[in-house]
């Protein structure tokens, strides 16, 4: 069973990203479950969202303490939140950043991936320069870097679940997919 944790800031789209990714896995025939941190969310405050993915229906309902994968939507969280909490050594972590994996010495031993999703989001007019909405770009990057879910399913999920700017979100997801190794 996959257990994926998203870190973001309130209003950045972490919850929507987790739902979209669940939809993408669902489209590939997986059992899925997606849920946010249970609490009072405030704009700008650190938030987390989670998904479980399995071959059959997901029956567990407890919090995720030991994720198999971590996705960080906001680079500024790296200094404020222990994003690797519970992640086993060698675990997958994808960070939205302009930096290189080797710029994060504290993440030595983890399977670190990076994408400049903010730049891609700004380029496609998603959010503002100060506050880009990076979730769809991050999902495209996740599909490529993890190899767990196909681009086609991600794009279908983005198309169905984007509240606005569907074409721009699709373009951002695809560009991120192609940019990530």
């Amino acid at each position: 069973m996959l257990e994926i944790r998203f870190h973001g800031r309130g209003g950045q789209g972490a919850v929507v990203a987790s739902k979209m990714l669940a939809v993408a896995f669902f489209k590939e025939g997986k059992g899925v479950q997606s849920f946010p941190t249970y609490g009072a969310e405030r704009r700008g405050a650190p938030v987390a969202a989670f998904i479980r993915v399995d071959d059959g229906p997901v029956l567990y309902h407890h919090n995720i303490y030991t994720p198999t994968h971590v996705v960080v939507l906001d680079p500024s969280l790296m200094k404020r939140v222990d994003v690797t909490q519970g992640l086993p050594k060698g675990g997958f972590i994808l960070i939205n950043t302009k930096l290189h994996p080797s710029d994060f010495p504290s993440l030595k031993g983890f399977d670190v991936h990076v994408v400049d999703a903010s730049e891609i989001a700004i380029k496609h007019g998603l959010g503002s320069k100060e506050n880009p909405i990076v979730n769809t770009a991050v999902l495209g990057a996740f599909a490529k870097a993890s190899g767990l879910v196909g681009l086609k399913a991600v794009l279908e999920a983005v198309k169905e679940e984007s509240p606005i700017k569907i074409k721009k979100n699709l373009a951002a997801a695809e560009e991120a997919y192609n940019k990530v190794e």
Partner: protein
Amino acid sequence: MKKVLMGNFAASHGVRLSRAQVISAYPITPQTHVVEELSAMVARGELNAKFIKVESEHSALACCIAASVMGARAFTATSSHGLLLMHELLHWASGGRLPIVMVAVNRAIAPGWNIWNEQTDTLSQRDTGWIQLYCASNQEILDTVIQAFRLAETVKIPVMVIYDAFILSHTYEPVDIPDQKTVDAFLPPLKNPEVLKVGEARAFGSVTSPDFHMEFRMKLHDTYERVPEEFEKIEQAYAATVGRTYGAIEPYRCEDAELVMVVAGSLAGPTKMVVDGLRQKGIKAGRIKLKMFRPFPTKPLQEALKNAKKILVLDRNLSPGTGGIFAHELRSALKGDARPVWGFVAGIGGRDITPELIESMFFDAIGADAPVSTTIFKGVRL
């Protein structure tokens, strides 16, 4: 059509497909998305209903009562303090034999302020005369809402469809949304002849002297005797049209189980996984998911528990001084039975219940002939 839906939206789709005619709600916390989505459905023209926004939950149910008296299919949704504020009107609805359906999302009660999951809010409405059905998945929420309208309209008793806050209400899961034609075949339009009509003098809620009042209450009680049977018929009809069934209780691996745990709501899934894990270790464990709480399914429970040597109940609720409410009810249903019943209380105010915690309860029961006390709190930090 299968979609990934949060539990609240699964409920909204159930209400839409049931063609509710009047929806009344108070939209502020502890309210959930259920009525937000319904108001959007009404605004988009997907549901031909009157949506009445009111200033309190007390008024929301009063609106539903008025609509139901006039023969309309009425719905409301609420949670914790909202449900408590409705308490007086809950009695009015059941006493008036009005087939109202309500979604009640289980949230803890203050103080301190806590919007997280706990089942004490609905369980403390035990004696209001409402049928209570607890759901374990978002699919079950959608299906149960539709079934609830038919059940309420068949026995003329209001029905509460209940599920856990956040764990289901805000969690997304795949849900099959049946098409309107299929649901229409299962749930015909409401034809309630006992309505107030313009030009025909009738009264609702007038004074009933000691000469009459007792018989009204006795008839409500007597009708409850029929509810399990009617619910089963409705489930069979639903299975025939839509294709799913749940049962008043759902026993899992109980036939040869020596230890059986009884749970309600979203704990049904995790306890199933824990039972599978224990079986792999050679421990004869089973579990029973309790869907129907009012009326209490005494006979099916006795039957499903007949081979169990030790009985465990996991309550996500608390009656202070008494303990877990499901445990209390089960002990009452098993009166005269010498088998030990472990009453565990966990998950109060949204505290997480992990599979390891559930497993530890089974091991507590394995390691003792009888529980150390009537109520055992688990997962407590002291």
